[in-house]
């Protein structure tokens, strides 16, 4: 029979292979799904994995969707590495978009082309503000940041609904719940011809480098991560847990807000109730599939973006519901968590009588302690999402 056996040391190779195995299993299950739905599985897979790469237009659209995922996931990676569980990037994204939209509406006919900078700054501040609420409640009242950040997503959605149905509704918009279409001067410069991809994508790639430096080459990044890996060691060293909490949340809020601002000042061009596209939640998966490593996150953001586009194409080409995107995202995260077991464990065939029950069921705490590291090789930590934050009294 099959038996899980603890490895003497976590396997680096498996840490890299795990996302690939997870992707392979996702593809296999996806194929079965298409067969069960009565569709040609090859066409189905092509829609997800070939079509999004087929033309220049397809590639630019891939970048348009990967950019917000990448930005948000970078911030979340820092958060998760610091053992701060910000699940509400979606809310910070929305508030960032609202703040950016509010500033964009201030632009007049003679506003210069630099105005988009202010719009983006508004997005950053909006996201930080929303995350600061989480930090404040955790810091002052020891409120669980998972719950608070998640609940604030729904508050943010209502806030968005309020402004687009109420005070900010376009007076010439035939009573549709939407703001005016923002002026050209508020828009982020596009990169190439008439394609929607803009300089935000370049910015995201610069952010990848910046986050790599923060995490692996600065004392501040080191302190943040020690707080996540071993709170007692951080206290021993004198690294402030409060500072780590605030900086992790403000940083990830800023990144989510920036992504929201870029959507407003880019592809969307106005506020509608459809601003939330689920990027904030999908970015959690992006961060974990990318091993919480900036370079890994680039690849996982592209993959997740393919799922988004594939879902849309599946709707128009195959007549399947768009929620297929969510199914694929969920499958990937689920199989990834399962495959990550193999980083700390290996599978052994054993004859049934020699089975030692003691080694087959190691406590989960032990398992996760073996899978978190600060490492600048493109692999490293994935934390079981059931890992609740440990409370530090400050």
């Amino acid at each position, binding site marked *: 029979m099959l038996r899980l056996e603890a490895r003497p040391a976590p396997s680096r190779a498996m840490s890299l292979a795990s996302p690939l195995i997870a992707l392979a299993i996702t593809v296999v299950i996806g194929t079965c799904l298409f067969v069960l739905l009565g569709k040609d599985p090859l066409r189905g897979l092509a829609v997800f994995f070939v079509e999004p790469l087929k033309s220049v237009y397809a590639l630019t659209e891939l970048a348009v969707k990967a950019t917000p995922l990448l930005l948000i996931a970078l911030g979340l990676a820092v958060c998760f590495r610091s053992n701060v569980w910000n699940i509400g990037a979606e809310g910070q994204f929305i508030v960032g978009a609202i703040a950016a939209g509010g500033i964009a509406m201030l632009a007049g006919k003679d506003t210069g082309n630099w105005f988009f900078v202010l719009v983006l700054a508004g997005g950053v501040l909006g996201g930080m503000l929303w995350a600061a609420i989480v930090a404040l409640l955790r810091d002052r009242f020891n409120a669980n940041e998972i719950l608070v950040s998640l609940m604030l997503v729904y508050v943010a959605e209502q806030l968005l609904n309020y402004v687009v149905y109420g005070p900010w509704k376009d007076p010439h918009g035939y009573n549709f719940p939407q703001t005016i279409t923002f002026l050209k001067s508020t828009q982020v410069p596009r990169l190439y011809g008439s394609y929607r991809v803009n300089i935000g994508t370049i910015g995201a790639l610069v952010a990848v480098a910046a986050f790599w430096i923060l995490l692996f080459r*600065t004392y501040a990044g*080191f302190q943040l991560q020690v707080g996540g890996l071993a709170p*007692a060691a951080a206290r021993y*060293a*004198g690294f402030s847990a409060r500072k780590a909490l605030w900086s992790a949340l403000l940083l990830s809020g800023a990144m989510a807000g920036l992504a929201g601002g870029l959507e407003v000042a880019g592809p969307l061009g106005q506020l509608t109730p459809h601003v939330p596209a689920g990027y904030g939640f999908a970015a959690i998966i992006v961060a974990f599939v990318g091993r919480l490593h900036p370079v890994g996150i680039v690849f996982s953001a592209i993959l997740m973006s393919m799922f988004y586009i594939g879902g849309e194409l599946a709707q128009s080409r195959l007549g399947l519901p768009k929620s297929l995107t969510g199914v694929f995202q969920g499958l990937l995260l689920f199989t990834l968590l399962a495959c990550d077991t193999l980083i700390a464990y290996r599978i052994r065939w054993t004859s049934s009588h020699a089975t030692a029950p003691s080694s087959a069921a190691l406590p989960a705490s032990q398992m996760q302690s073996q899978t978190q590291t*600060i490492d600048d090789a493109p692999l490293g930590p994935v934390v079981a999402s059931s890992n609740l934050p440990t409370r530090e009294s400050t």
Partner: protein
Amino acid sequence: MHRLELIDISKQYPAVKANDRVRLRVKPGEIHAVLGENGAGKSTLMKIIYGAVRPDEGEMRWNGEQVQVASPAEARKLGISMVYQHFSLFDTLTAAENVWLGLDKSLSLADVVARIREVAGVYGLEVDPLRPVHTLSVGERQRVEIVRALMTSPKLLILDEPTSVLTPQAVQTLFVTLRKLAQEGCSILYISHKLDEIRALCHHCTVLRGGKVTGEVDPAKESNASLSRLMIGAEPPQLQHREPNLGSVVLSVRGLTLAKEDPFGTALDAVSFEVRAGEVVGIAGVSGNGQQELMAAISGEDRRAPAGSIRLFGNDIARASPRRRRVAGLHFVPEERLGRGAVPTLSLAQNTLLTRTGAVGAFGWLRIDAIGALAESLIRRFNVKAGGPGSAAKSLSGGNLQKFIVGREIDAQPKLLVVSQPTWGVDVGAAAQIRGELLALRDNGCAVLVVSEELDELFEICDRLIVIAQGRVSPGVATAAATVEQIGEWMSGLWSRDFAASHAPA
């Protein structure tokens, strides 16, 4: 016929062979010592006997019959009981409720209380079954564990390092109980690395080293040196003691009173003492009497100490952060190596950054080369066996990681080094090296404060001893003038009569 016989027991773990064809024979009514260093395979062997671990090979015989013990429940059915080194008691339940939990439910709680009183009376194990466990001292908790083990009238009792939490007096009381049990025919497996105790108590001794049996002797006929040779393959190196060259007061703790943070912790009560440059001061005491709280207050991990209660060179540091204290020359080695003194999953190089910031440049930029070089030099200077600066902290053995952590702090050239349990779970060779390093530091004029539960260790390296009991500390006494008996009595809090009139507090 033997009560218990192990024939060629082997157990392979992924990285080590914990037991390699181990043979062990225990007669009825025999107190049988299993002696070995940490990592020699003692615990694995006991877990195999108790059914918590399965051996890969070998045979176990119980009263001459071959048996396969699949679980601790089966072991108990055979008549094997075990008292673990770390107690498994619920703090919020009473002693009787704790015992009741482990029994089959045919008895009522009232029956259990009566039975505990009976067993406790017969063996002189004073226990109040109705008291909640969190109000019991460590020694009392151990008695609850032993009573629990005796409730089923075992034929073999396994005790894992039972004296590490006891005062010297409590050790003698325990020995009386164990001898009485043995006289009644109960066999006892006594696991320890303390040579004096084994020679005083045990009839027979099996020595393990590296998972193999290296000797079977009658401990009464052996000397500490000969047992030590069997255990570590060499005699422990002797330390060089020089006359202390006392300097000015470095650390001064005055009226440190601190309410407990954890409900089961210990409050500190007007703790006062001093440490001077060029001396080693030891704090003795049974664990859980406020040592951890005192260390946290001195290291800066707990910053609630009243202003002015802790001074370093006369400057108030009671509320300073650990980093400010380090800048002022106070370095600390905590008792937990993994998770506190070092981050388990990080490399040795990265772990230097916890307390050493020499490689942090402008704007917090980390100079990776300098970090690696520091780790490399620590590994070389302190003889740490590790793959290199890139090895994860948790890949090192306890002794080597401790050498690295102690080395990291010594290398920082502290003016005051505070060390908690310097050689806990460290093999004899590494322990001797660490003690030697501490003495060398003292000879160079550093003030050293050591907290340890091993009295032998404190007597070996300290110039002056103070005792902590129930959150209060005794006056200091020169080690040369102190006796084990006296310090043992003080560990129960009874120092006032020795200081009734003549002595002023140190």
